[in-house]
């Protein structure tokens, strides 16, 4: 593949089971130029370009036989440096936890340049204050007296291992944060990770013995809207939900999905300007959970009224097709007609530049895609202007 050049449009950062690929777009997003692979053969779980500076790219990587680590690059992957101190639990801690994977990366609050957070498997939380070079455990979470219970330690109830994901930081207050545990549920801190509380009421968990348990749920992806931070969306193992924080209770907006499609899936992605708009990618959660599109007919569904109604978008998508879209493998850009992107377990990357109405495949035959993120190299995220 060719070297990536600066082209004016968004860049997609693609983490795969076999390495990292980048796709840069023309300004109108009509053409895409791929570069890579980088770290061929490494599991690239998550690759994120810092939206605060548009320069620092951080990669969570491992291989099947070597331990997990983190790399960072300031030149769009031309050169990489391994973290001087990768994320790890404390040596000699009572639970003797060891990190098997760095699963999730989130840049910190805009007022804390250089701060990053990482979620692990098992469900540890780690932070860096120097752009991902040295990492420390977040003791307030990892050593919380309820951690063993909330994280169901030492069970590993998720097929690829239990993990901490969906690290959402309140743009109004860096001390206010949400995380998701698969499994375990959604948890919130309001005091800079010193203490945490479950936030799962209203969310179904029929696999639990009690009807509305405080924790033990399986959120697949949780998103906070940056312009309305008290609105949360969640794609859960058991449905699609929205919470307006003052309610402190999740509402199953997936009940408004077509019944023959259902509301099971992994990612949920938000419109950067409109808190009422969200996209999901339904998966078949019947029988033994195939985790492929219902009836083999892939489609994105969008709501434009906060979950009251949903519209199918499948123009251009193949049918039948039998891929899965993982929780980190869908994203949106910051253009005026928002671009929506998803990567498949069969290695195809699909793009829509009309907010999910129609789709085209912009690259095929990559390895299994684990994550897709949007970045704007050198400029960070463009300024948002509320309409």
């Amino acid at each position, binding site marked *: 593949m060719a070297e990536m050049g600066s082209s004016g449009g968004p860049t997609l950062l693609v983490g795969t089971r076999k390495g990292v690929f980048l796709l840069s777009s023309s300004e109108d997003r009509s053409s895409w130029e791929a570069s890579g692979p980088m770290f061929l053969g490494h*599991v690239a779980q998550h690759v994120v370009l810092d939206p605060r500076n548009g320069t620092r790219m951080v990669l969570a990587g491992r291989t099947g036989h070597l331990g997990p680590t983190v790399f960072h690059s300031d030149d769009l992957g031309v050169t990489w440096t391994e973290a001087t101190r990768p994320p790890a639990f404390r040596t000699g801690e009572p639970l*003797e936890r060891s990190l098997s994977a760095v699963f999730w990366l989130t840049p910190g609050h805009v007022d804390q340049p250089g701060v990053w957070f990482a979620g692990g498997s098992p469900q540890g939380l780690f932070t860096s204050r120097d752009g991902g070079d040295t990492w420390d455990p977040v003791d307030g979470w990892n050593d919380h007296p309820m951690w063993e219970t909330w994280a169901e330690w030492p069970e590993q109830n998720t097929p690829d291992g239990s993990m901490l994901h969906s690290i959402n930081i309140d743009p109004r207050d860096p001390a206010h944060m949400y995380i998701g545990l698969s499994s375990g549920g959604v948890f919130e801190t309001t005091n800079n990770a010193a203490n945490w509380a479950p936030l799962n009421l209203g969310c179904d968990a029929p696999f639990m013995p009690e009807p509305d348990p405080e924790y033990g749920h399986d959120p697949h992806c949780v998103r906070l809207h940056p312009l309305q931070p008290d609105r949360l969306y969640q794609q859960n193992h058991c449905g699609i939900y929205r919470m307006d924080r003052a309610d402190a209770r999740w509402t199953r907006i997936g009940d408004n999905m077509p019944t023959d499609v259902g509301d099971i899936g992994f990612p949920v992605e938000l419109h950067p300007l409109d808190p009422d708009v969200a996209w999901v990618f339904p998966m078949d959660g019947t029988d033994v959970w195939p985790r492929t599109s219902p009836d083999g007919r892939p489609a994105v569904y969008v709501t434009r009224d906060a979950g009251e109604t949903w519209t199918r978008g499948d123009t251009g998508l193949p049918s039948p097709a039998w891929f899965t879209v993982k929780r980190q493998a869908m994203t949106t850009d910051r253009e005026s007609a928002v671009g929506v992107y998803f990567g498949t377990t069969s290695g195809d990357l699909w793009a829509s530049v009309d907010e999910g109405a129609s789709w085209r495949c912009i690259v095929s035959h990559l390895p299994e895609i684990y994550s897709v993120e949007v970045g704007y190299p050198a400029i960070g995220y463009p300024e948002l202007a509320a309409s």
Partner: protein
Amino acid sequence: MKVRIPTPLRSYTNQVSAVDADGATIGEVLEDLDRQFRGLRFRVVDEQGQLRQHMRIYVNQDMFRELSTPVQPTDEVTLMQALSGG
């Protein structure tokens, strides 16, 4: 002593397949390797001092998993791994 480096770890040794390291135990040898090639040890040994699941360490012809295993300057240590992951 001589330490043989498997291909997945040679990004740390400038692609050199055998290096010299000192130590009275396997653990000390790995710590010396990490001083020379920063980051190598954590890919092989986890934060609780356990050899990672798919790693193997041979001293001459014998396999060991305990980092406290003593070694002699005349021994040859070989780091190996099951190429898991598919």
